[in-house]
């Protein structure tokens, strides 16, 4: 079903898949996205520490950091190159966290985004082990105990607003919109950069054939993903669950065979 063609579901108009295109080539590292996200979503303060890692004092995405700006300092021929990139939950097409959640707390919204329902999550932590990007973690602050991550500002989307981070971004490094429109724009931008001599520009998670089926949030990077702390070839672990279940059944059969040997196999 195509969105925007007037079709309805449960009485509501079908929504297009919404997402982020983060163009790191124009990120200036202002961290307005981090601040806007914290403010709007009431994400608690989780410590103010100096890491010594360039201007990055947030460190990584987690339960209390839903936008994270990475700062990479690289030695190049004519001096120093500074890469900045605002990272976020990828809202994967094949989302490991959603697949493994045993309570159904993690759901996909009408916008194609992935959201944790806080009142359902019982803090089992399985999603933490299933995210190829290390996005989700447990919030310990205030005895919360639940798992948290970016909601792509689900509340704002329902009111027709753009997410707080995209709204606050002063350079339009963070772009919000229907994913198919963003993809077209991103491909144009890569071409533009290649023509301008930036041969390293590449898209990350913009390919629906990758291990997570592409991201609802994807990126334009200027170096290899691992330079920014991103996995080079992320895969939804559930893709291989058939092998694990098959092995578990075979091992269960081996256990039964062992018991048969134990009962039938001797007179001692």
């Amino acid at each position: 079903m195509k969105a925007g063609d007037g079709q309805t579901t449960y009485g509501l108009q079908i929504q297009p898949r919404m997402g982020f295109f983060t163009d790191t080539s124009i990120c200036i590292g202002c961290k307005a996205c981090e601040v806007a996200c914290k403010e709007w979503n009431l994400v608690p303060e989780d410590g103010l520490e100096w890491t010594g890692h360039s201007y990055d004092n947030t460190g990584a995405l987690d339960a209390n950091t839903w936008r994270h700006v990475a700062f990479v300092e690289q030695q190049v021929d004519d001096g120093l190159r500074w890469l900045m990139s605002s990272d976020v939950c990828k809202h994967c097409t094949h989302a490991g966290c959603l697949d493994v959640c045993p309570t159904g707390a993690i759901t996909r919204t009408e916008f194609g985004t992935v959201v944790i329902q806080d009142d359902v999550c019982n803090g089992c932590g399985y999603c933490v082990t299933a995210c190829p990007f290390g996005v989700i973690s447990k919030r310990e602050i205030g005895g919360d105990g639940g798992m948290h991550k970016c909601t792509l500002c689900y509340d704002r989307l329902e009111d027709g607003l753009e997410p707080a981070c995209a709204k606050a971004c002063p350079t339009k490094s963070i772009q919000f919109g229907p994913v198919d429109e963003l993809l077209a724009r991103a491909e144009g931008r890569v071409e533009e950069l290649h023509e301008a001599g930036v041969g390293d520009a590449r898209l990350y998670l913009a390919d629906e054939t990758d291990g997570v089926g592409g991201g609802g949030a994807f990126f334009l990077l200027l170096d290899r993903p691992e330079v920014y702390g991103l996995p080079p070839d992320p895969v939804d672990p559930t893709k291989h669950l058939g092998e694990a279940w098959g092995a578990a059944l075979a091992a269960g059969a081996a256990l039964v065979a062992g018991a048969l040997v134990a009962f039938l196999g001797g007179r001692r």
Partner: protein
Amino acid sequence: MTSYYGRPIIKEPVWKPEIPTYFFTGGLAGGAALLTLGARLSGNDVLARRALAVNTAAITVSPLLLIKDLGRPKLFYNMLRVFKVTSPMSVGTWIVSASGTASGVAAACEVTGLLPRVKRAAEGVAGALAPFLSTYTAALVADSVVPAWHEARRELPFVFAGGSAASAGGAVAALTPSRAAGPARRLAIVGGALELAATKAMEDGLGELVGEPYRTGLGGTLSKGAKAATAAGTALMALAGRRRVGAVAAGALLCTGALLERFAVYHAGKASALDPRYTSVPQRERTGRLTQR
């Protein structure tokens, strides 16, 4: 290898030691349920009674460990909202619930001497669920991005099945008079051998890099301890298991080995999540032949 200030790419699992302890008690309960059913079917009530006791004790402790580990223990019942085959934890919740109920009913009948047919049926249900109870936890940890678990997905269920048989056989043999304990001893020996062989196959299969957390650090130490205890317990059960004191020592060693192996897997997984090499190097190698986009 390049990384972002050496920081992890994936998150360290948040599970506490209750979880590997449960992997042990769940396996113990599964193996003991099989022994209970086999003993009852073969008319060995002396053995069946002990096996049922071990099974019931282990399956009673299991959900307590699981609930204690939750970030929000009061909401544990939300596990029963859905049944999802894409979530081994969801499937496992139902297996543990059904198995625990069956064992509880069987134990109540055994103690009171009432409803013998219900007891047999309940033992049958627990026995039928036992192979799943003993191995689903391996599929659970394998269905993750943690390299030391995910890449071991084909072998890990056999490690857990072996540990289940070894610990249950060992524990029940230790509690049962020697003349009635033959099947428990044999299950312990078969299980110990399977656990050792499967662990070796798993560590070899993981290869030089991803197998490292099973050879070094805390995971490596625990793994070595597990192998030593399981090997000693298996040998002792074979040589001296018919003497009660031998069976008790062998049973203790086999249970120790199975418990240490679960903790080895747990800590190897944590170590493999904390170091970005284990995530990014294999991924880079498999994409290396593709052109960079």
